């Protein structure tokens, strides 16, 4: 009787552990996806900024070249 009760308690503790681990993994995966999306947007915005800066730089260079030719 005691043995069966102990086994049941162990099973329950094990089950809770498994459920908790599954929950932790699911939350971690969800957080990872969220972080990846966020950092992709950040990366793409930084590239936009970089391209905008290059365009400004080219415009300035073009203007100075035009002045020199005049």
């Amino acid at each position: 009787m005691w043995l069966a009760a102990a086994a049941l308690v162990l099973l329950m503790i094990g089950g809770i552990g498994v459920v908790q681990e599954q929950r932790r993994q699911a939350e971690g995966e969800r957080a990872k996806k969220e972080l990846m999306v966020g950092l992709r947007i950040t990366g793409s915005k930084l590239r936009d900024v970089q391209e905008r800066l290059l365009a400004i730089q080219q415009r300035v260079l073009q203007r100075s070249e035009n002045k020199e030719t005049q």
Partner: protein
Amino acid sequence: MRKLMLAVWMMVAGTCLAQQIDLKSLDQFAAKAKSKTEINMDESMVKSAAQFLNQDKKDEAAVKNSVQSLKGFFLRSYEFDTNGPTKFRLEDLKPILDQIKGPNWTSFLRSQEDDEQTEIWFHRTNGQIDGLLLVSAEPGEITIINAVGVTKLEDLSSLGELGKFAEQAQKKPAPKNDDN
């Protein structure tokens, strides 16, 4: 002694919170946006996410390097119908930009052309970079990114690489469906 301890704790707490920007003023646009992305990740969530990043995958490896020092990541990105009634004005950014008027925030880049505005600000504590704010506003789109704990500019270069991955992924043709 207790008062001194309290003052020290308040100073520490103030420094920790200083890099985090209150983005509540953007809530009014969330409901009107055509599409939106909102991310609120504190340090524990960032750490939990980092554990699940696969070093063998190129894009995830790049993220893993970038997030090592990250203590918080907060993002708001809203897209509006340019012909719709909701118009985003640059003045709407004032509540955000007012928060970075302190001496610890330094402007890294400010660009304003017509109705487009881009700003990158760094937060410094004792001269060391420990926070970033990126503001990008153009007609029909507004993106605000607040990364707490970004310590190196190199971290950002790997994020730039990530942007490249995202663009390449977008350019890739959709996989052919065998059923068609």
